């Protein structure tokens, strides 16, 4: 367990990379009940003006917080978690690939302590979530009860 008194603002909590392919999007659609076809149908996604199939924002948000759960050791310590979805995460379908086996799009996640509340004994972890060098989540912040 993390010792609150040892934490400092700005401290890095770690980094990880999550990969997402088309099969992951189908799995997330089924698990979450979000069957918006922009997340699994190329034709439909293109017709509504997107570059192609994109990941559910909630997939990215849900996957990114894993870094915080791992760091704190208890996912239920995440008492508040928010983000803005600013850029779509395109998930390609490379010719000749098996959609379940192709690595897919790399989502790079790093976290740092953004704020500490000594009275409440909470730490705010600010997540940086990038795809191909571009921020896809903005103001991604998880508050952890320690």
């Amino acid at each position, binding site marked *: 367990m993390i010792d609150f008194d040892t934490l400092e603002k700005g401290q890095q909590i770690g980094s990880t990379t*999550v990969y997402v392919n088309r099969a*992951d999007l189908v*799995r*997330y659609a*089924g*698990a*979450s*009940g*979000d069957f*918006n*076809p922009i997340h699994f149908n190329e034709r*439909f996604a293109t017709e*509504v003006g997107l570059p192609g199939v994109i990941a*559910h*924002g*909630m*997939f990215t*948000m*849900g*996957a990114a*917080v*894993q870094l*915080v*759960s*791992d760091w704190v050791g*208890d*996912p*239920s310590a*995440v*008492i*508040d*978690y*928010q*983000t*803005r*979805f600013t850029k779509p995460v395109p998930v390609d379908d490379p010719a000749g690939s098996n959609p379940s086996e192709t690595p897919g799009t790399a989502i790079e996640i790093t976290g740092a302590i953004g704020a500490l509340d000594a009275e409440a004994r909470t730490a705010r972890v600010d997540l940086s979530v990038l795809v191909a060098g571009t921020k896809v989540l903005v103001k991604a912040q*998880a508050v952890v009860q320690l």
Partner: protein
Amino acid sequence: MSINPELAGRVYPAQEPYVVGREKIREFATAVKATHRAHFDLDAAASLGHDDLLAPPTFAIIVAQRADALLVNDPDSGIDFSRVVHADQRFTHHRPIIAGDELVATLHVDTVRAMGSGAMISTRAEIATVAGEPVATTVSSILVRGEDQ
């Protein structure tokens, strides 16, 4: 069809309870690539003080989006789901969600802001147990793109 500006302030009451299942927690955790054992293994959940499998931090989206669907599918709202983009999301947990919970959500339409021919709509789902214990508050904004956007 344009967004009904009178939506703000509307409240959609709780529907049938959502019963949180162990397999759903495992399925959702797998889908978001969450690997903590407390989502999969009863002993691991118990060692953190939970009586059953622990749901991942964004699990409440299932309940929240079911509540949002009441608004999106309301013929009176003027919302075309195919033009909806998720703009932001927040979860505030009053206590952890675990398997066996029976949850109900009351949906509040907090703000409706015209954006060209579309609109930004912010909703809040107050999620509680059927016994009335507050479990989570989720706040979400959706951008409904206008015909020319």
